[in-house]
């Protein structure tokens, strides 16, 4: 069986969905970050697949941007998590609810 | 920062123009000074004055109160009723918002002149009384009162509609603060309720004003430009109806039109004296002034469409609220309700759409402003003697404080329309205007019942307070150096108001002549707007049905 674009789309969407559910449903902030990374990588996969499918370079170039931004975001995010842990001794999201109305 | 620049710019341009002998503009600048003198005084009191009981502070306060009053009367005597554009003492200062057509355009015409002097008079009385009172944080109180005063002077002196609204809000916010801090019972809730309700009303009217400006295509956001634009091309009837509705209900809320009046009694009941005097006496007239000056002349078709509601709701004020006033036991609430009732007369006077009716409304506005301010002043004086506002617990004031009783009785009699005071002329002219046409006569029959209702509650109040024998505890509290009869400050404040009432009551021509000329001017011009050809070319935006 040839692996066409559809299979890539399915895999990418599944990964994205898993990541999304992880963001929604997990309590641990680090896990949420990992899920965000998963979503980003799912998008990367899709972009590369389309780039190959359309024989253009646009998608691949964009992948570089995403990877850079993801890296920077993780760096900043993890630093914030560490500071939060120092302040509140917890990184569970249901305990970090000072913005509750 | 821009405010700083603007003020410096004004100050130099302004003093420069005075010095470089522009004496023809002197009176215009005098007009402007009646606005910024109280404002500066207010700022000084708020920021720098620590103890109001010192001579310096008192002198400053007196200047701030007396100078606008004196200037207002000077302007009165210099008023020239034959001016073609009908606005005297015009002063136009730039604001940086010229692209929107907004200038600081000041001026007085026959409609705003009496209200302007009313504002100056009530302001003088309120400020003198407040200066010598014993409120806490008096410097704040007097400062806020001055700012409110300057806003009031500005409202009636404005020809520009933006500043008309601006000065109104300027005067409303200090009211809110004053009620919050120095008010009586339940002041937090009441202050919020009153301010939000009034701001809602002002907002509705602002939308109406802006709509009027946009639709008329006037070149600047002021009354003169609007009139010129509307003379050339009037607005279509449907639009007039809608804009008038906005203005009517917006201004109506501000003037406590039935059934939008519920903010008034509790609000006045909780307000401190100066705030109540200035608000009920002057700020309330803002709405009716707006209707008289702007809504009715510029929107004749809209006025006609809503005329019935003007009459009906005004009657509601008189009859329903009149009866409600009968059931009040608290003196301040009774005065608050009675002030709502008298506004009913003004609305039905406007509903006649005649010069006579409009003139009567003007007289009544001035008279009512003076009398209700006087009543609030005296109610505080009475409170000082009895330590309660409940009329059932009072009695025998004639024994303890004969002068105060006399003032109070006269104030009540003035407000119920005894001849010799200005209210009589206002009410009488309005009634006469109602009797003119068959269609409004039924309103006359019902509205005249108001004179009986007001006599009942007014005299009942006097009976409960002045007549009878005073309780021992009250007599004790009032002998010697304590409250007793009226002190000179109370007498001065009350006399200023009562004297003006007498003056206008005995010689109403003092205001009616100028008002008459302006009203004739306005109504004869706008009669052009009533001719049938106007509906013609103007295309209006209809709401398209969504398929």
């Amino acid at each position, binding site marked *: 069986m040839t692996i066409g674009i559809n299979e890539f789309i399915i895999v990418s969407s599944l990964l994205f969905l898993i990541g999304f559910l992880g963001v929604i449903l997990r309590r641990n902030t680090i896990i949420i970050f990992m899920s965000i990374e998963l979503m980003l990588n799912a998008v990367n996969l899709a972009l590369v697949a389309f780039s190959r499918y359309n024989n253009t370079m646009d998608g691949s170039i964009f992948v570089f941007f995403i990877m850079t931004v993801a890296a920077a975001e993780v760096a900043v995010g993890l630093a914030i998590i560490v500071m939060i842990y120092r302040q509140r001794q917890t990184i569970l999201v249901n305990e*970090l*609810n000072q913005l509750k109305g | 920062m821009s405010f700083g620049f603007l003020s410096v710019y004004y100050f130099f341009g302004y003093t420069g123009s005075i010095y470089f002998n522009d004496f023809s503009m002197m009176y215009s600048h005098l007009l402007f000074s009646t606005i910024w003198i109280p404002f500066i005084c207010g700022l000084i009191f708020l920021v720098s004055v620590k103890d109001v009981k010192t001579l310096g502070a008192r002198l400053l306060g007196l200047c701030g109160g007396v100078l606008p009053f004196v200037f207002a009367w000077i302007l009165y005597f210099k008023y020239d009723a034959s001016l073609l554009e009908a606005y005297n003492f015009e002063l136009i200062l730039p604001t940086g918002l010229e692209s929107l057509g907004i200038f600081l355009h000041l001026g007085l015409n026959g409609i705003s002149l009496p209200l302007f002097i009313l504002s100056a008079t009530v302001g003088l009385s309120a400020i003198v009384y407040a200066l010598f009172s014993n409120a806490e944080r008096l410097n704040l109180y007097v400062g806020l009162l001055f700012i409110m005063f300057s806003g009031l002077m500005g409202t009636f002196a404005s020809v520009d509609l933006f500043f008309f609204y601006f000065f109104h809000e300027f005067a409303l916010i200090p009211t809110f603060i004053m009620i919050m801090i120095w008010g009586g019972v339940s002041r937090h809730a009441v202050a919020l309720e009153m301010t939000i309700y009034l701001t809602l009303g002002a907002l509705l009217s602002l939308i109406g004003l802006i709509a009027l400006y946009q639709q008329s295509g006037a070149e600047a956001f002021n009354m003169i430009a609007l009139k010129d634009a509307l003379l050339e091309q009037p607005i279509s009837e449907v639009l007039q109806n809608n804009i008038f509705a906005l203005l009517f209900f917006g201004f109506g809320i501000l003037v406590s039109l039935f059934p939008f009046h519920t903010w008034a009694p509790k609000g006045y009941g909780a307000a401190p004296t100066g705030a109540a005097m200035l608000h009920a006496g002057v700020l309330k007239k803002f709405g009716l002034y707006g209707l008289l000056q702007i809504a009715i002349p510029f929107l004749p078709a809209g006025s006609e469409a809503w005329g019935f509601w003007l009459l009906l709701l005004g009657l509601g004020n008189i009859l329903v609220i009149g009866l*409600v006033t009968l059931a009040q036991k608290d003196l301040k609430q009774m005065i608050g309700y009675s002030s709502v009732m008298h506004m009913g007369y003004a609305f039905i006077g406007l509903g006649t759409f005649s010069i006579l009716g409009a003139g009567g409304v003007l007289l009544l506005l001035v008279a009512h402003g003076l009398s209700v301010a006087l009543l609030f002043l005296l109610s505080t004086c009475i409170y000082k003697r009895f330590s309660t506002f409940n009329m059932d617990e009072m009695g025998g004031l004639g024994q303890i404080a004969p002068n105060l009783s006399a003032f109070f009785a006269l104030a009540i009699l003035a407000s119920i329309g005894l001849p010799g005071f200005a209210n009589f002329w206002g009410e009488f002219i309005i*009634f006469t205007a109602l009797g003119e046409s068959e269609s409004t006569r039924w309103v006359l029959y019902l509205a005249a019942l108001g004179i*009986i209702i007001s006599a009942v509650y007014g005299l009942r109040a006097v009976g409960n307070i002045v007549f009878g024998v005073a309780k021992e505890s009250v007599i004790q509290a009032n002998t010697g150096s304590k409250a007793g009869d009226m002190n000179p400050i109370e007498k001065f404040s009350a006399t200023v108001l009562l004297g003006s009432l007498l003056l206008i009551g005995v010689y109403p*021509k003092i205001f009616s002549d100028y008002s008459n000329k302006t*009203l004739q001017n306005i*109504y004869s011009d706008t009669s052009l707007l009533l001719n049938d050809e106007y509906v013609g070319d103007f295309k209006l935006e209809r709401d398209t049905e969504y398929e």
Partner: protein
Amino acid sequence: MDILTNLLSLLFLPLGTSILIIALGKHRKKYAPIVAFMSAIGALSLSYILLRNLPESVHYSWEWLAFGDSKFYIGILLDNIGATMLAMVSIVALCIVTFSIGYMSDDAAKGRFFAGVAFFMFSMTGIILADNLIMIFLFWELVGFSSYLLIGHYFQKEEAKSASQKAFIVNRIGDFGFLIGIILTYWQFGTTNIELLSIQSGIDPSLMSTFIGFLLICGFIGKSAQFPLHVWLPDAMAGPTPVSALIHAATMVAAGIYLLIRIDFILTSQVLLFIAYSGTFVALFAGFCAFAQDDIKRILAYSTLSQLGYMAAIFGMGYSGIALFHLITHAFFKALLFLGAGAVIHACHHEQSIFKMGGLFKKMPITSITFIIGTLALCGVYGFSGFYSKDSILIAANDYNGTLFYFLVFGAFMTAGYMGRLIWIVFFGKANSEAASSAHEVSAVMTVPLILLSGFAIFVGLNAYWPFGLGASIVSDLDHLHHLSGYKEIHKWVLILGSAAWIVGLGVSLIFYGKGSSEDRLQLKFPKVFAFLQGRLWVDELYQYYVNHIQKPVAEFLSFVDEVILRGIIVRGGAGLVGVLGVGFRLLQVGKINNYVLWFFVGLLLFWLYGIDLF
């Protein structure tokens, strides 16, 4: 001095006096009586000078207020009728002020009293001199205000408070009709000027309207205490007696009749018919009520009411001149009676019940004689002033309508009856209380006015001898009467019936009530009749019922609606609704990031759906 200055001084002298007395401040008590007295003398002299050189009719007018095409004026009109009223008012006022100096000598607030009386004189003069209906209304209300002030003079008493309130409010009810009538007149005729109105209604009688006429006489009904607005007059006796004499006998209540005389030409025949009948009704009704009163002032108050009914009746029959005549004679003898009653009350140490007096003739001869003179004048005894006016009334009534005539004669009989009751009980027999037995004649300052007034009570009926041609309208009306067909027979018949009325009335009252009784024999022998008479047709109770059971609940209901429904439910409820919305939205803010991300995606989804037009 020229006429205008004279008129203006006449009008403003009392006002100036009032202001002066107030301005005297602490010295009021000492100087007020003198100032008031000088002012009354001044007013009388001004009137004298004015009337001596009075031209045919004096008319001044000043524009006072104008809006658009409508103009309102203040002006002066002084014709024969006004001049007659002016003369009477000045003389009566002088006598009453003099009397008050003695009567109020031990009152701490006499400054306020004299200032009030002076202000009243100003308002009354304003009504007399007014040249248009609006100005009459203006001073009409001011007269009501003076009355309020003076009735409430003893302000610490509960009855003074309710009486003064009642007087003002009932007057206001009358003024309500009067005001609407004036406004409708203005639009109907284009003016409220009396002279112009008479000219216009002469030219175009179709302009006159019964509806407007009825509205205009509402003022009269209120001010002159006709049925059903009569309830304030008896209660008004709570004021000092000179006030009752001045205001509620001689002048203010007469202002209503004066108004009628002034607007005579604008009243249609239906209105006149109504006035005639209602006047007769009041004449009888008040007479019945007087029998059940034991307060000397109240008896006199009801007597005033009855006489006002006579004046109204004769006016309604078309003889406004005779109404004026009776007004003038009544003013003098009623003022005399009230002042006499005041003297009696003063001597008996403020005892006002007639059953606690008795035998005062011997103790207070001057007062008694003058009082009896007044009574005889009131009863229409031949030779006294009341006879001449009452006689003419009865003659005119006979010609107008037989039934009304007999009613009026019966009324005369009743007048003699209740006045006889008063006299026999108060002045004859034995003293019935401590106060009465220690009574003695009052001081000269009080007896001189009494004597003066009794002179007028006797001679003022001879209207042919009135100086300066005053009372011309009376002469013309009397002339008209003399030329009625069958005048001689009518006159004879009226003389017989009239004399019979007072003779029988005085006699029956003497026999029935006896001299100096200490209790009311009518009450003893016919208690049910007495109770019915005391009920006075329960009009007062009706008003009280209305105030307490209709007006008050309605007011409180409306207050409830306003407070709870309008303010509570709608306004604060609206605010509450917004608050609920706020609480609702607050629930969304859980603080958990997960939920926020979910909402973010939901929003994104909605936007996408909107973008692809699924919405």
